[in-house]
């Protein structure tokens, strides 16, 4: 199947502009709108609906769906498809995410754009398959071996499941790095109203493809056509005859495994191509922070009860605000440092035993108190439970 991106056709397949939709299905919509033409996946609760939605729709827009034999294979096929010239994605949950880790690192090392949706459930191990959690927030950042940079977004609503999947594709295309949508069983299985953008309102970023003369093309170096550390992308079949390896490689892509400078040059480039843009990669929502003494720093599903707790606090005269991270990785370090200077206390509610609280604490730099507000077991925080943190318990 030769796929051709046709947003008009995609809109036709998706149907009405306003829909009452499942979070997982919104990820399907986002992927299709972004131009995803390959999905390789393996069923797992609570992410299976993404695969099911893709299996139904991809053939109708000219894309390919394959149910792979496991998540290792899914991630592999997704990377292969990207090198074959497609935009590609997969979706999974904890156990599958763990299986993907080796090839997730391969994608980072080989600068392969692709998207992983992780509908998080509780862990470790098989945990509570149907119940949501935020337990993989550090795994997405550090879960594969070696040094790399993660790109990860955390949606709080069904609308954001769609919007952030599009955004994940955009980031992954722009930086030639895997990008993850870190949703969870709560948001993934939530039904909410969403508005689907019209063709003309779609903001889609595509990879910069190689155009330079074939003899002059260098596959793993700064762009040869603009100022960027992201190389121009010569996907397979375009005549550039690129060799791609997960081994440490030189600029030509050839293995260069025994000298320190080769490794440092490569890994510094593939990490700083993202960290250099840290300021551009801040995507947050800030509520009531102007006069706040205390702030929630939150993301994903947990932002919902945190916002309710904030409203309760405000009604009772507590000067509380909220910072919601939409892009979680790269972490908005400067923003958090500045916030810590302005408030006395930061509360970090999470559906884990405390993960994102660590970078918050690191970048608060002791300017204020940082408190973890964990809850595990597949139940969301109640607003009242979080409100208690405002009163100092």
């Amino acid at each position, binding site marked *: *199947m030769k796929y051709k991106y046709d947003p008009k056709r995609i809109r036709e397949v998706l149907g009405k502009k306003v829909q009452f939709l499942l979070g997982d299905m919104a990820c399907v919509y986002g992927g299709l709108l972004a131009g995803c033409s390959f999905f390789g996946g393996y069923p797992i609760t609570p992410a299976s609906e993404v695969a099911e939605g893709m299996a139904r729709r991809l053939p109708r827009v000219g894309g390919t769906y394959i149910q792979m034999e496991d998540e290792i294979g899914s991630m592999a096929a997704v990377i292969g498809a990207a*090198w074959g010239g497609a935009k590609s994605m997969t979706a999974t949950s904890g156990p599958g995410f763990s299986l993907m880790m080796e090839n997730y690192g391969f994608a980072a090392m080989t600068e392969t754009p692709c998207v992983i949706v992780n509908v998080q459930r509780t862990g470790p191990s098989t945990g509570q398959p149907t119940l949501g959690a935020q337990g993989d927030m550090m795994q997405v950042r550090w879960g594969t071996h070696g040094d790399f940079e993660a790109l990860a977004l955390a949606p709080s609503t069904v609308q954001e499941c769609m919007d952030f999947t599009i955004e994940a594709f955009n980031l992954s295309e722009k930086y030639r790095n895997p990008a993850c949508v870190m949703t969870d069983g709560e948001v993934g299985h939530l039904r909410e109203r969403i508005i689907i953008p019209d063709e003309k309102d779609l903001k889609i970023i595509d990879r910069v493809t190689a155009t330079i003369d074939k003899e002059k093309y260098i596959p793993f170096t700064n762009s040869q056509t603009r100022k960027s550390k992201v190389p121009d992308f010569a996907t397979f079949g375009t005549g550039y005859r690129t060799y791609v390896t997960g081994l440490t490689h030189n600029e030509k892509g050839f293995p260069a495994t025994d000298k320190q400078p080769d490794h440092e040059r490569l890994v510094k480039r593939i990490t700083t191509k993202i960290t250099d843009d840290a300021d551009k990669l801040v995507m947050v929502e800030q509520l009531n922070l102007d006069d706040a003494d205390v702030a929630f720093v939150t993301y994903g599903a947990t932002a919902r009860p945190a916002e309710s707790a904030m409203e309760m606090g405000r009604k009772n005269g507590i000067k509380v605000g909220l910072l919601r991270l939409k892009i979680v990785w790269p972490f908005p370090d400067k923003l958090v440092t500045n916030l810590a200077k302005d408030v006395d206390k930061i509360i970090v509610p999470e559906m884990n035993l405390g993960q994102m609280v660590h970078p918050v604490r690191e970048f608060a730099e002791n300017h204020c108190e940082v408190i973890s507000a964990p809850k595990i077991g597949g139940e969301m925080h109640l607003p009242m439970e979080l409100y208690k943190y405002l009163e100092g318990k």
Partner: protein
Amino acid sequence: MVEIKTADELNKKFLREGMWPTIFCNGCGHGVVLEYTFWALEELGLDMDKVIFASGIGCSSRLPGYINADGLHTTHGRAIAFATGIKAANPDFHVIIFTGDGDCAGIGGNHFIHAARRNIDMTVIMINNFIYGMTGGQLAPTAPLGSIATTAPYGNIEHPFDISNLACALGANYVARWGVSHPYQPIKSIKEGLEKRGFSLLEFLAPCPTAYGRRNKLGDIKKHWAWYDDNTILIEDYEKIMKYGTEEEKAQVKDKIQLGVFQDIQKPGFFESYEKLVDRLREKETKAKEGKK
């Protein structure tokens, strides 16, 4: 008519500049398989811009690096799954996978099984040297009973994996196994595999003098080659003996490794079927639209 080229001319055409010398030891069989692949590609006259190579990890998996073509050197055992994605993105590609016995029959077995079952259009070239060569000679799933490996120092007690047999059972469209001492059949089989739609497996028995030969009293490459002659038999001969031979003759060939073309069928390949599915959906939709008018 194809013009017959010399080995030098072939190498000039197909080898990637700048990747020389290879990592291969003297007497290693991997280079021979590469040369046979070049012959097959040359004879088929394929557009090398559309021939894409993938491999896993191992000495054998280093082969795509030496070819002047697109190549994806992936993770250990996963090349076939990567290649599934490459092919899905562009079914016009000819996708060739180089893999080893460890890479394909060991860690990657599950991907192999399912790609063969789905009949994904790809050509898998598995070089079986009975050993994990790259990591220094640990036990491979294809190792003959009694053979020595660093992790089977007292002799292998596991039954060896017959990967060609497995591929046949899975319904692969083309399955052949050859040694590498004679060029004609291997080249012919690579060509046939490449021309096939659907899944094809080419298994080559090739020596690893360094990690296998030395430990198994076959360090001398001549002895190594002789071992293949003594321990293999053509399928046709095997079947003849099993049918008409004496008990003594049967006992002699019973444990030999059979060589030849095991399977040559034409089940629809995955992408052929997928395209039909897409067409079916389109027709249905067009009809529904017309019905509304």
